[in-house]
């Protein structure tokens, strides 16, 4: 009797604070349980879990909650966390290989468990206190003879992209389980490998490691499009591969050039970004090398005129592939541009910035939107809208102003959420009707009201309605570009206004397709009995919808984490491009005295 009482007494004080802290989570769970109209207990349960998890995720982010979480775990630092983030999906992929092909359920469960473990590992990231420089740095010699190291680290620039990756990959996989019926094991294997490679390229600081991860990303995606894609999948996958590979080759050449120049000057080989950043290169050399890197990254972004692989790849890719391609892979182009393009070649990047910003506005935002206006294939339209949205991201990066850069990074996340959700939604009707032709639809809001409601919310997010996430990104980018007279030159303000005009076109194409697909009379008999969102689809969409409003209303929760890193990065960048470029390659002394002394062989 007595121990039970004691236990109750002990548990009472626990329940109180738990309720106080977790009431939003519980409320979200309760609301989620009440939402479904069908009386299916499991549906309610899973919906509640999805809603509660989404809110839990937010509460963990909350500044106050963060303090509480830090109190809970005094240590707070996890030295090998990044390696875990790479290893979990990669080893998960290997584990999937050992599951019998016929045991589809087991394959699914294992994949989801691995991805859940990845999310748990990502949640540990929230406990990392932002500090100067890189966080969670980890260096291991890999191929010492070539100076290749396994050097991974994280900072505020890559932080949210990693979080985005580990949230959206499970969403994409989970929703794909509804439609992928063939070669499921291969599918899961490819997806897990892809996730590992994406996280890997986001944390790699060694150029060799980065290049390996960058290319490793290509293969699973190539397979995803080529095996589970649409009718023209082979053509699209080859186009995707060759386009990206062409850029990668240029980047590889540039990497090798720098590495050998570094060896010529220092006597040792190194692929490490931190080492290579010490190289001062003449402007002409910088321009050529920058071109090599920038083309690789801008193809991936994609920016006009190297964007044409994207509509084909998106159209033919399976739903999950499209989501990941749009949500994460494109962002790696932007990220690479910041980290390596701007990081290694400050003068060239600064000089090209104003021109490229013009390309981003005219060729990306406006041209992409105009192309989107004329698409009859819904997926193709969303793909062109990606071109337009990524124009904002690149404009923010080129503007090189702390706020615009934060806006650009946030816009990457936003685009991942809203365009990921759009592709997911297109996948929903594609699964039902097996067509993406706008003319086949019309009035389906009547048949699928919840689907229509979610689509409209995501559309609002995509066109940047204030209160949703899209607005924050666009507003920070546009205002940043407008204010950054110094970086963008005399055209900065015109570019900002041009980007603002893109907002009109965005509304035009998204609302046109919404009207054609969802509104009007429901006159196609094939659409009359379309089932509404399934449990699986609703659960996959729930976290995205929560994030749409979370970022839209509380963007500071997200930008705060970038703050220090972005400011430091831009300060360093500005300092470096303000100095006159050297006449011939020189090597600056290593910044920290503790670093191994490299002999400057003049």
């Amino acid at each position: 009797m007595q121990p039970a009482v004691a236990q109750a007494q002990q548990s009472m004080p626990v329940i109180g604070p738990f309720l106080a802290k977790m009431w939003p989570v519980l409320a979200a769970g309760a609301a989620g349980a009440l939402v479904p109209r069908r009386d299916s207990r499991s549906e309610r349960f899973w919906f509640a879990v999805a809603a509660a998890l989404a809110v839990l995720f937010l509460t963990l982010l909350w500044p106050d909650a963060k303090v509480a979480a830090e109190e809970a775990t005094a240590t707070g630092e996890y030295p090998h966390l990044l390696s875990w983030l790479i290893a979990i999906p990669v080893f998960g992929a290997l584990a999937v290989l050992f599951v019998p092909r016929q045991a589809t359920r087991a394959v699914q469960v294992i994949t989801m468990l691995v991805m859940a473990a990845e999310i748990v590992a990502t949640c540990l990231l929230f406990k990392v206190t932002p500090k100067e420089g890189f966080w969670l740095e980890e260096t291991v010699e890999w191929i010492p003879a070539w100076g290749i190291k396994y050097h991974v680290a994280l900072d505020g620039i890559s932080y949210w992209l990693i979080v985005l990756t580990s949230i959206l990959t499970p969403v994409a996989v989970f929703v794909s389980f509804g439609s992928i019926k063939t070669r499921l094991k291969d599918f899961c294997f490819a997806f897990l490998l892809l996730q590992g490679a994406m996280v890997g390229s986001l944390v790699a600081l060694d150029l060799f490691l980065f290049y390996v991860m960058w290319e490793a990303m290509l293969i699973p995606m190539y397979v995803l499009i080529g095996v589970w894609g649409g009718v023209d999948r082979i053509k699209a996958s080859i186009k995707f591969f060759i386009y990206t590979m062409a850029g990668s080759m240029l980047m590889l050449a540039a990497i090798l050039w720098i590495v050998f120049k570094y060896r010529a000057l220092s006597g040792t080989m190194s692929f490490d970004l931190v080492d290579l950043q010490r190289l001062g290169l003449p402007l002409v050399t910088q321009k050529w090398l920058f071109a090599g890197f920038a083309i690789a990254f801008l193809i991936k972004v994609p920016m006009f005129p190297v964007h044409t692989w994207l509509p084909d790849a998106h159209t033919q890719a399976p739903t999950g592939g499209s989501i990941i391609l749009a949500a994460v892979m494109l962002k790696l182009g932007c990220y690479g541009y910041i980290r390596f393009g701007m990081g290694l070649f400050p003068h060239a990047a600064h000089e090209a910035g104003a021109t490229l910003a013009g390309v981003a506005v005219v060729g990306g935002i406006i041209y992409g939107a105009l192309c989107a206006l004329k698409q009859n294939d819904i997926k193709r339209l969303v793909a062109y809208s990606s071109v337009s949205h990524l124009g904002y991201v690149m404009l923010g990066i080129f503007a090189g102003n702390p706020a615009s850069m934060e806006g650009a990074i946030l816009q990457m996340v936003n685009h991942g959420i809203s365009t990921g959700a759009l592709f997911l939604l297109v996948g929903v009707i594609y699964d039902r009707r097996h067509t993406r032709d706008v003319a086949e639809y019309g009035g389906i809001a009547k048949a699928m009201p919840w689907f229509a409601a979610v689509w409209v919310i995501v559309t609002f997010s995509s066109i940047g309605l204030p209160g949703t996430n899209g607005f924050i990104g666009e507003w920070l980018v546009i205002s940043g570009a407008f204010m950054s007279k110094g970086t963008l030159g005399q055209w900065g303000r015109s570019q900002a206004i041009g980007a603002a005009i893109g907002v009109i076109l965005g509304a035009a194409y998204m609302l046109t397709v919404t009207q054609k697909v969802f509104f009007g009379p429901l006159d196609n008999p094939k659409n009359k009995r379309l089932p509404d969102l399934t449990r699986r689809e609703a659960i996959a969409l729930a976290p995205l919808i929560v994030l749409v409003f979370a970022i839209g209303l509380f963007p500071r929760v997200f930008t705060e984490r970038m703050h220090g890193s972005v400011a430091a990065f831009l300060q360093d960048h500005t300092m470096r491009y303000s100095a006159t470029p050297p006449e011939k390659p020189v090597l600056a002394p290593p910044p920290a005295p503790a670093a191994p002394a490299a002999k400057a062989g003049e």
Partner: protein
Amino acid sequence: MEHASSFAPANNWFLLGLILGLPLYGAFFNGVFGKRFGRGAVRFVGVGTIFVSFLASIYTFMELHKLHHHAEAAAKQAHGASPAELVIPTTKLSWLAWHWMDMAKFGTTDRLPIEVKFSVDQLSGVMLLVVTGVGFLIHLYASSYMAKDPSYHRFFAYLNLFIFSMLTLVLADNLPVLFVGWEGVGACSYLLIGFWFDKTENAAAGRKAFIANRIGDVGMIAGMLIVGYYVGALDWDGINQNSERLLNAERITIIQRAAGPITISMATAACLCFFIGCTGKSAQIPLYVWLPDAMAGPTPVSALIHAATMVTSGVYLICRLNHVFAMSPFAMAVVAVTGAATALFAATIGLVQNDLKKVLAYSTVSQLGFMFLGVGVGAFGMGFFHVFTHAFFKACLFLGAGSVIHAMHARIHDDVKSQDMRFMGGLKKYMPWTFYSMAAATLAISGFPLTAGFFSKDGILFKAFTNRVLHPVAATAQTVLNRPECKDLTLTHCKQASIDYAQHWHAPEWFGPLLFVVGIIAATCTAFYMFRLLFKTFWGEFRGWSVDPAAAIAPDPFKNLEPLEEGVTEYAAGHEAHDGHEHAHTDPHDLIDGDRHDDHHDHHDEDLTVPAAPPHEAPWQMAVPVAILGAFAIFAGWLYAEPFHFEPMGHWLHGVFQTVVGHEVIQVANAAKLEWPLMGPGVLAFAVGAGLAYVWYVRDEERVPKQLVASWPRLHRAAYNKWYVDEIYEATVIGGADALADGAALMDVWIVDGILAKLSALIVSGLGALLRSFQTGVVHVYSGVLAVGTLGLFVFFVRPHPEATVMKEGDTYTLEAAAGTGYEYKWEVEGGEADKDFVTGDQATKRTVQVPLDATRKITLEVKNAFGRTAKQTFTLTNPKPAPVPSMSVQGMPGRPPPRPPAGH
């Protein structure tokens, strides 16, 4: 401001959170759970939240009033000045919700914090009451109007969301938060116009509204950027305190000309940008086209969004930014001219429309024009007062029209025809409450003396005649010039003042009277079309009997209306339709799938075959709000009865506009004397318009209008078709954008992808084909190629190659000749030593030469190989001033001048 409320401090008035939160909660509840919990719950939550919000608003307003009173008394006590010069501190209740984001700030790396902050002051306090009060009445009305609609919950979700957005707009304490509401109301408007989305026209109208608003929103964004960039603040207090920075900033050159460029100040630029936003949201020329189409939405929506609240937010914005607008007489003139032009233009269209709601829509556009005319001439208070009165009479008219349509629909069962005034008439008898309310509102909008519309409209016209807007500098100069000593302009400061005054643009003297005349014409038109509406709807005999309800459900209602556009063979149409569609007497419900159709009109269970089911009066939920609004339409004018010097509203708003009115905005000298005389034309406008309508439509039974239409059919058709503005836009702007998009899409497929993907693929495959042709697999061909290759190598080795690598160290150049089988070398330095004969050995391959700075020397190398063949090459060495080249490989061919070591790189 020390006054402490018992409820909460003024700087943390969290009741605003409740006022905002309740409608949002209502939207969430109705949207997500509405269907599950049923109509009763939807009605309770949808209407109840707004009602509680309204009560909280009243309490807030009372508190604000108390605070204001307190501050005013304190100011009076402190200064003891005459009331005219008394500066009353603006009172404000504010609530900071959270810190939203940090945007860029020019010139520094620090950020401009944007907070989600709400505040209520005198201006927003009035708007708050209007939005929640009129909003509540309209919600109540809608709860009955929409009662049978299958998407009842969706409707209330949208409507509540709209109230939330509108309150965000009104209560925002800074521009970005206002923009949230600004676009939020646009989005709700989009959703509500397309509420019955199963008709393509409705959905298209919603989209049109959203995109037209978006065009304006770009102006808003640009305006915010300019203000943020130059003023460095986006909240009201910050803008008001630092707005003069806009004048001191650089100027934008518009036109370059010989006599100095024409430039505008940043204040003008910002104001014009904001005004673009206002033209979109408040339906002014050139972006008004969406509002008439927006009538596709349910009638309560037209009343709430497209008459009483959302469309007036442009006027609210200008009033809110009156400090900024007053800095630019030019922008103010643009606002006034646009307002006057819109007032007249829309009124002319309204004269000939037959659709009840279309008349009201154009009337709204026209009335909004009056409001902009008012704020454009600096009559901020009066312009805003027109927002206030218009909310009542126009909401009353729309709701009354809704009741009429509701009643007509019971007869006609056709969306288009039930709104057509040609099928109405005589409804006075059937719906007395609606009639009296609408008649009251019609009197008000037409400017019948002592009604609400009379005071606000005539106030605007009077101010248009007498007000002058001056540039701040010019205004200051004006006060200097008005001093007695400045009769003599030779005094330095007076001279300076006169120069200052002349340097800044202000509207010419004829500007005000012209606006007045335009306004009077527009007011005459207003009185005419409003009474035309009233007479055609409520007077005479009910014409709806002639429409066969069965024929009315013909699938293409527009077709039947076609001959009506001529306006001559009006009544024939119904019969024609009857004849033509006798066979179409099927249940319309079969046409639509299953049981989920959203038609709002399948709810009349009267027997359609009984021809004499008369139109019925609206239920109390509908009639009472209309009556209340009608009462306000009559009496609300006494809140700002300027001619009688009874103006509590003017007094209340004074604090908001006090720094501007009297400084930048001045009145002509004898304005007070003009007040009563200028009322004459206003009253005359009412008399002429209303009288003409009576004579033409009641006494003469439309003889004259028919004659007019017959004599000028093209003019009538042009006016009926809204002067073809939509068609013009379609051909120019939309067509242009469409062509551009077509071009872009084609370019993407054929040029961009063509060159980058298809052409490069073609080149690669061409190269592949070429190389493949060598891989024949025929041994003879391979051995033949082998023989040719061997021969080539042989030739290469037989010829000597006098090549050398040039290395430089300071001024010393070292040439090292390439090695080869049995090579012997002979060097000859120009103007120096020369080898006599060919030599071999380690030393022979090298030769060192001194080349002074900026000098050039030539060295000739002759090589003899094992076959005894010789060849020669001359190297020209130039020592340029900067010497950056560490090593250089020069290859030369015999007989050709060798390449010079390049200078520089």
